[in-house]
């Protein structure tokens, strides 16, 4: 996990179950930014991200009694969000336009590197749009969200081995698009 340790999440969820609403705020604060990036990576338009976030947390808090901490909270939230994105696609019978806005990982003081990073991000976003759903979700959960394969497998209802295979297939296809 990138933003929060699983033990912290377990403690926060336990506090929320004891009607501690500050715990809910803390859960949102910890996971909203990463979840927003994940939803964006799945193809949600920037204008939809806030609505999707709200709906994801709403569904999560409604079902939080059932979360036992076996899968990470981030992975679980990402799965709920991915289902919402998928449902949205199904309703609109198409894909929303993938934003190509990227955070610059390279040295922002170097305009050439910045442009290169943006180009790489654009190609990656386009490549992700062409991947099968499971490959796309596994790749983002692994490369962007930092989830372990066990966690991804639980979140997506598959095995760690299969998740690893999906990741490597995704990387292989994306390498062809992002030199």
């Amino acid at each position: 996990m990138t933003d929060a340790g699983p033990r912290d999440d377990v403690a926060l969820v336990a506090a929320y179950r004891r009607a501690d609403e500050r715990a809910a705020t803390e859960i949102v604060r910890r996971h909203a930014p990463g979840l927003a990036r994940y939803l964006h990576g799945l193809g949600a338009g920037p204008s939809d991200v806030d609505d999707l976030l709200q709906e994801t947390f709403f569904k999560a808090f409604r079902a939080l009694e059932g979360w036992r901490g076996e899968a990470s909270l981030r992975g679980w939230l990402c799965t709920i969000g991915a289902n919402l994105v998928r449902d949205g696609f199904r309703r609109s019978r198409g894909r929303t336009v993938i934003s190509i806005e990227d955070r610059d990982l390279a040295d922002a003081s170097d305009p050439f590197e910045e442009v290169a990073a943006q180009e790489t991000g654009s190609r990656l976003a386009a490549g992700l749009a062409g991947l099968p759903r499971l490959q796309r979700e596994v790749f983002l959960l692994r490369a962007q969200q930092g989830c372990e394969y066990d966690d991804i497998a639980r979140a997506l209802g598959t095995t760690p081995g299969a998740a690893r295979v999906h990741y490597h297939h995704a990387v292989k296809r994306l390498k062809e698009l992002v030199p």
Partner: protein
Amino acid sequence: MTNCEGLSDRMPAVADGRSGWTAEEQAHLDACADCRAEWVLVGAAQGIGGTAAPRTDPEALATVVLARVRAAERADRRRATTRWALTWCGLAAAAALMLAVLFGGPDPATPEVATAASTASVTDVAFHVPLPELDGAEPEELQAVLDGLEVPLGESSTLDAGLPGDDVTQQDMERVLRAWEG
């Protein structure tokens, strides 16, 4: 010794700053084009949606979400109460119906049932006309009533009964016909 699989497994942690490359890993990365290509992808994936951070303040988002959760819980409770009430109403109605059938149904000695039974046993006619005044009658009285009834048509009377026979003359026939026609 670092291999590609091991390096791949370490990439997310290094990309988000939780860890760093060891000298050996860095040397492998420098020498392996495949790993470098994957590393570029992982770095780019970290950057995807960097500007998609929620515009809503997390505290405000949590407030909205919790308000919706509480409203949904209240609606759940209302639905559960309604369902509970409907269930109990249904059960009460079913129980009342069952009690009515068991204890409050028509008495076998009531006129309608007795009449039907007596009518069926006394005559073979297809129509059962309720005659409550006969319910309390003794067998002799019933027999007297039966004797007083006309003999059914099919038993002894025919359409020819009472009509002139073959020995009547043409004039007699015409007289009878004229009398019928008025």
